[in-house]
C-alpha cells in the first residue's frame, strides 16, 4: 500500500526504458545510485557583508555574494541540490538594527534557499516583524514543529514540515526550535507555546517516513549541538532519542565541526549531525548516495559510510 504509487512509477519507467531505443543505457542509469547534495548554513546573524578587514580573526570571511557564487557553482555541477538554514538569520550587524531582517530574507530568497527553521534571535525585532519579513520577502518556508504560534502574529506563518521531490527521491524536512524561557524575553516570545522537541520530532519524523513515504528525513534544529548540563535538549540528545531522523542540521551553539558527528538512534540506525559555525563563514556540503532496496533485503539497522569529499 505504502509503496504502491512508487511501484507504479517505477514499473512505468522501467517498461519505458526497456521499450525505448537505447534501452540498455537508460536501464543502466536507472540502476545507478541516486545522488543528493545538501548545502547548509546556520546562525548567519545578519552577516551580509564579509567581516571587515580590521585585523580580526574572521576578517574577509563570509558574505552573501561569495556564498551565492559558491552555491551557484555547485548547482551547476550537481543535479539534485537542497539548500537549508538552521536559524538565527537575524541580529548581529547594524543591517538588522536598521532594516529588521528585510535584506537577510530577501538575500535567502535570492540564493534559492529551500527551507529554514527559526532561531531564538529571529524573534529579536518582534514576532510581528518576523511575520512581515517572511510574508513579504520569503519564497521558502520556515519550518518548526514544536512551537505553537496560535493567537500570535506568527500563526500560520510557519509549517511543521515540507516534503521535497528530487528526481526519484522524496526528502522530508522539518524544524525544531529551542526553549524560549530564559533565552527569549517574554515580551518577544509572547503567547508562543514551546512543545517538547524530542516528542514532536519523533511524531513528525514518523509521519514523514511512514505516511509521506520519504526516503530520507532531515531535521533543521536550533536546539544546539550539545551541552554539559544534562537537562538541556541538544542535537546529541535528539539524535539518540530519535527513530526516523537520518540527518540533523544544527545551529545555535555556533559549533564549528571538522566532520559530521555520527550517533546511533533508538533503533540502532545511524543519525548524522552537522553544524557549520556562524556568520556565514562556512557553507556545509553533504553529498548522499542512495541505493535501491527491496524491503526484504534491507539490513536490520541502517548504517551509512561517511568520508571527506576530495576535490570539488
Amino acid at each position: 500500500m505504502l509503496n504502491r504509487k512508487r511501484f507504479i512509477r517505477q514499473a512505468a519507467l522501467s517498461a519505458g526504458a526497456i521499450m525505448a531505443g537505447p534501452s540498455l543505457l537508460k536501464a543502466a542509469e536507472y540502476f545507478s545510485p541516486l545522488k543528493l547534495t545538501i548545502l547548509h548554513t546556520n546562525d548567519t546573524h545578519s552577516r551580509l557583508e564579509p567581516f571587515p578587514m580590521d585585523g580580526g580573526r574572521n576578517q574577509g570571511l563570509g558574505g552573501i555574494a561569495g556564498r551565492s557564487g559558491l552555491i551557484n557553482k555547485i548547482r551547476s555541477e550537481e543535479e539534485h541540490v537542497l539548500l537549508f538554514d538552521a536559524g538565527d538569520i537575524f541580529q548581529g550587524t547594524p543591517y538588522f538594527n536598521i532594516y529588521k531582517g528585510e535584506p537577510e530574507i530577501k538575500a535567502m530568497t535570492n540564493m534559492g534557499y529551500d527551507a529554514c527553521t527559526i532561531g531564538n534571535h529571529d524573534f529579536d525585532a518582534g514576532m510581528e516583524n518576523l511575520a512581515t519579513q517572511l510574508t513579504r520577502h520569503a519564497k521558502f518556508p520556515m519550518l518548526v514543529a514544536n512551537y505553537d504560534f496560535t493567537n500570535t502574529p506568527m500563526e500560520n506563518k510557519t509549517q511543521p514540515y515540507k516534503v521535497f521531490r528530487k528526481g526519484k527521491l522524496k526528502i522530508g524536512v522539518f524544524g525544531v526550535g529551542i526553549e524560549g524561557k530564559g533565552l527569549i524575553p517574554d515580551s518577544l516570545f509572547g503567547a508562543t507555546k514551546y512543545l517538547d522537541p524530542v516528542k514532536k520530532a519523533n511524531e513528525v519524523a514518523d509521519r514523514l517516513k511512514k505516511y509521506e513515504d520519504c526516503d530520507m528525513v532531515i531535521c533543521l534544529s536550533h536546539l544546539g549541538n550539545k551541552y554539559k548540563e544534562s537537562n538541556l535538549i541538544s542535537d546529541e540528545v535528539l539524535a539518540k532519542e530519535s527513530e526516523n531522523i537520518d540527518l540533523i542540521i544544527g545551529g545555535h551553539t555556533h559549533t564549528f565541526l571538522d566532520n559530521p558527528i555520527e550517533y546511533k538512534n533508538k533503533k540502532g540506525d545511524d543519525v548524522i549531525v552537522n553544524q557549520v559555525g556562524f556568520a556565514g563563514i562556512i557553507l556545509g556540503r553533504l553529498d548522499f548516495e542512495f541505493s535501491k532496496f527491496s524491503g526484504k533485503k534491507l539490513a536490520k539497522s541502517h548504517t551509512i559510510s561517511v568520508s571527506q569529499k576530495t576535490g570539488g
Partner: protein
Amino acid sequence: MKKNPPFLLIAFVFISVAFSCNTVYQSQTLQYKTYRINSAEQQDSSLLNFLQPYSVNVNKTMNDVVGVASVSMDKKQPEGALGNFMVDAFITMAAEQYNTKVDVAVMNFGGIRLTQLASGNVTTGKIFELMPFDNVLILQKVKGSALQEFLNIAAEKGGWPVAGMTMQIKDKKAVNIMIGGKPLDPNTVYTLANSDFLANGGDNADMLRTIPQISNGYLMRDAILDYIKKLKSQGKNISANIENRVTNAQ
C-alpha cells in the same frame, strides 16, 4: 508499441517480480565538505548589486557622529572611566525605560569591548564596537544578601563597573558596600539594572538565575546611544571619571 503487446506484457510481469513491493531508497554513503567563504570565491554580482543600496545607508548611519567625548576613557580594573560611563548610561536609561527608581547598575568587565574610547567625535559605529552584543538591559529586584554574593563575583574577578554604589575589594570579596550612601542591608530589596547575560547566570552569577527579570527587550547598546542623545540635549559631552567607586582595600 502496436507491434509487440506480448512483449509489453512479459516486461510488465518481469518488472512486477523484480520490483516486488516494498522497494525503498536508502542513503548508503555520505561525503562531506566544508567551504570557507572568502574573497577568492566567485562573487555573485546580482547579490552585490542587491546589497549595495542597503550598505550605502548602513555605512552612512554607522559613520554618523552621535556625540563628542571630552576625555579619553579607558577600560581598567578595579575601576575605569569607560566602564563608569557605560553603567551611568545603564542606571539612567533603565530608570527612564522602566519608569522606576533604580538603585544600582552593574556590568561585567568582559562586556566592555573597546580598550579605549578616544576623545573627539564618537560615531554610531564606535558604539557598536563598544557594545556589539545584543544584550538586553533588564531590572531585577535583589535582596541585599544576594546582591552581596553577586558583588563578590565582581570583586573576585578584579572589579566590575558599578553605578549608584561604592565598594572595596578585600580577599576577593566585596566589602564596605555603600548603596545610595548607606551601607548594604542584607534584608533590603534593591532594584538592580543588569544585563540579561548576567541575570541568566553568565560569568558564574548563578545566584541571579532564579530572580525574575523585568524586561522589555531594550538593548544595552540602545541605552548607550540614547544616553548620549540625552547628554547632548542637556548640552553635555560624553565623559566619565574614575571616582573611587571600586577600590582595593589596603
